[in-house]
């Protein structure tokens, strides 16, 4: 074997194949990874960069246009027109006056651009934004402040006005809601007595008398509420803020209709951050307004999180039990192979099919049966189904079905990764199969099962198509989990962030103005899914440290 020690080492030929020179696979695999990372980071970066700036107060520019027109607005886009000149898309607002929210201004027709310090942006409850130059604050015919003092006076008056408006909403939603529910319960009691005992029987008459009594009480209570709201509204009555638009019209905006106003050209950085934080706060905690294109998305956040968690609670036991049977009990054979293939194929079924199934089976068959068994009075009295239509429970179940293959496959993988030596050790101790599974196999496989659940949650939280059929609505302000008895209302329809993206982005009457909102909602949805996942990963990490850390 030993060769001549003086013989020179064989040199690698310069003509040797590429594979002999280096590691082409490193470049290939590394390149593939970088490309994937670049795409993912690019997408996330785009969403974040677009979404995060939506609420930042941008300067208002006053454009002097060659045909003696003037326009006041924010520049939202800039591009080269087909003829080579540059043009700018300006958000001019004041839809009720100009008939449009945006306007393209070619550079050639603009004679001057200034930033008047007193230019004001007004967010209104209805009618979109208003851009104008403040003239005076008035109460009825009386001028409270004008000129430079006007905005300061507005800032002083406005918080109280807003507080009264919110109090009115609170009364309308909360207190009147309670009265309505009481009245409905009494009415249903009458119908229920009629259905079980028949008309004019003793029970019916008692229920009827009770309903009359309730109705009188409720009418009295409503009277009180009406007085309260009238008083609150009256205090806001007559308060207005008069503006001049860029075009020269004078417009009075009732203070009660103003959500907030700011003068972007005058704001310091800290004040801009104040406006920014205030708008984020409204976005995260308020109900939507203006066909969801403004205001908050709180019901949608709530609906998304509630649905995702309920879905996870539903899919976990089903998926884990199914996988346990497949992996631990079922004998290997063509039948189990066929079941496994079928499960994998389920993962490829279009999600809208699940939606159709959910609507047909869960809502109509299951929900319909529940209604006719337990909610007959409501069905008869209102002609409205309770469970027999889309709702949180059915949406969660549909998505649980949709994500079931993911959980089954991941659980099976996790179970097969449990070393057989552990199972044998347990059997050798005299454990039965179920004891072995419960005490050894499941704890050991738990991190893997959690991985499946995390994937399922991520997929379920981002799904839209099936939800449109089984319970998600454009607007549903009654939360599915709230403080009114019985606290969880699985039959209620709900809002969902992913659907909101579709709705605001493509169904909005003012889609150009809603575009930044779409990015912000997308950003929020991604953030919520990331938060759910990070929580689950953290829990998984804890379990892993406890059960799996294997050192040899």
């Amino acid at each position, binding site marked *: 074997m030993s060769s001549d020690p003086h013989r020179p080492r064989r040199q690698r030929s310069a003509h040797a194949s590429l594979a002999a020179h280096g590691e082409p696979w490193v470049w290939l695999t590394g390149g593939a990874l970088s490309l994937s990372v670049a795409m993912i980071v690019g997408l996330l970066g785009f969403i974040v960069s677009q979404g995060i700036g939506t609420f930042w107060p941008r300067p208002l520019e006053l454009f002097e246009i060659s045909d003696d027109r003037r326009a006041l607005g924010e520049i939202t886009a800039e591009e080269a027109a087909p003829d080579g000149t540059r043009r700018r898309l300006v958000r001019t607002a004041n839809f009720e006056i100009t008939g449009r929210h945006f306007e393209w201004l070619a550079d050639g027709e603009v004679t001057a651009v200034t930033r008047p310090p007193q230019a004001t942006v007004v967010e209104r409850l209805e009618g979109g934004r208003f851009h104008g130059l403040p003239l005076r604050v008035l109460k009825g015919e009386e001028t409270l402040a004008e000129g430079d003092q006007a905005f300061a006076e507005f800032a002083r008056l406005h918080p109280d006005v807003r507080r009264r408006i919110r109090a009115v909403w609170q009364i309308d939603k909360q207190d009147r809601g309670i009265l309505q529910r009481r009245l409905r319960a009494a009415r249903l009691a009458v119908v229920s007595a009629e259905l079980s005992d028949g008309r004019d029987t003793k029970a019916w008459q008692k229920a009827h008398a009770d309903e009359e009594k309730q109705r009188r009480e409720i009418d009295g209570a409503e009277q009180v509420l009406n007085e309260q709201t009238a008083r609150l509204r009256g205090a806001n009555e007559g308060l207005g803020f008069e503006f001049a638009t860029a075009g020269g019209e004078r417009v009075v905006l009732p203070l009660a209709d103003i959500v907030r106003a700011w003068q972007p050209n005058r704001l310091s950085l800290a004040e801009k951050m104040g406006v920014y934080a205030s708008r984020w706060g409204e976005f995260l905690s308020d109900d939507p307004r203006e066909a969801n294109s403004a205001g908050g998305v709180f019901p949608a956040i709530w609906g998304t999180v509630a649905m995702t968690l309920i879905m996870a609670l539903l899919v976990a036991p089903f998926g884990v039990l199914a996988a346990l049977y497949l992996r631990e009990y079922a004998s290997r054979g063509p039948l189990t192979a066929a079941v496994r293939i079928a499960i994998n194929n389920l993962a490829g079924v279009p999600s809208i099919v699940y939606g159709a199934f959910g609507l047909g089976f869960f809502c109509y068959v299951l929900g319909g049966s529940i209604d006719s068994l337990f909610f007959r009075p409501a069905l008869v009295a209102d002609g409205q189904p309770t469970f027999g239509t889309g709702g949180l429970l059915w949406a969660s179940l549909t998505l649980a079905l949709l994500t079931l293959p993911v959980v089954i496959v991941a659980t099976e993988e996790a179970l097969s990764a449990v070393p057989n030596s552990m199972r044998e*050790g*347990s059997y*050798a101790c*005299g*454990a039965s199969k179920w004891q072995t599974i419960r*005490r050894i196999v499941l704890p050991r496989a738990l991190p893997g099962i959690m991985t499946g659940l995390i994937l399922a949650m991520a997929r379920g939280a981002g799904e839209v198509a099936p939800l449109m059929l089984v319970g998600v609505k454009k607007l549903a302000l009654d939360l599915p989990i709230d403080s009114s008895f019985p606290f969880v209302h699985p039959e209620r329809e709900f809002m969902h962030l992913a659907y909101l993206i579709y709705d605001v982005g493509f169904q909005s009457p003012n889609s150009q103005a809603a575009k930044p909102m779409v990015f912000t909602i997308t950003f929020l949805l991604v953030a919520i899914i990331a938060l759910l996942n990070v929580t689950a990963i953290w829990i998984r990490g804890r379990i892993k440290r*406890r059960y799996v850390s294997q050192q040899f």
Partner: protein
Amino acid sequence: MKPPSPAPINSSAGKPAAPEKIGAATGRQPVADRLATVAAGGQVPAEVHDLVRREPAVLEIDQFNLWYGTKQALHAVSMPIPHGKVTALVGPSGCGKSTLLRSVNRLNDLVPSVRISGDMRLNGDSIYDPRMDVIELRKRMGMVFQRPNPFPMSIYENVVYALRIDGESNRGVLDEVCETSLRGAALWDEVKDRLSDSALGLSGGQQQRLCIARAIAAEPEVLLLDEPCSALDPIATGKVEDLIQELRGRYSVLIVTHNMQQASRSSDYTAFMYLGRLIEYGPTPDIFTKPVLRETEAYVTGRFG
């Protein structure tokens, strides 16, 4: 391959070996012949020393055959396992030592293709009786595997596992069993302050001793050790061997090993197996210093296998 039948049993295998055979070893078939016969699928009578038969047996293996599918892995193995002694099974890889061991607590039941014939008796109870409850049977034995296989739970829970699955929840009983078992496995002093830590954080040698503690926790009638030191370093091996010495007398131990020194150091009796047959079985000093068969001598001195 011939379809196996449970019948081909050499009639002399079950009977006590005649005393005069022992001295006549040199006059027997040469090594190659005997092993060649076995390799060709034939039967040779097992040499079971008389001393083995005089011991009271805790476990009796009786004409035991086992097939993996169509391949026969054990051929009419008959041997008594003495009570309170350490019995070592030696032989080259694939000779069926582990299979025999795993047949004792019916772990081979978990392998779908396995068929058996013959029987084993644990203190007189037939192990392969159809009426025998396998779960109850396994509770009467303890087993330690080649690689340490602690369960993914705390040290404490690992030790009392057998009691837990029996539904024992009296803390006092569990604590006591935990301590005596860990002391029995010479692990108590090392882990007494961290009983609630994960067992997976122990070193390999500690894990194996933990598995031994787990196996003796339920006071087994037989302790089955399947090459308990093959995954351990020499120091951990030494500790486990010392432990086996301490277990001698208190437990009946059946140990499979590849390591001749280990067998000669730690066992009272040694059985030599080859290709699924029991070749020679006797007191360890005899097997290692004056075996009846040349084949045995060739194997224990390292000339083949």
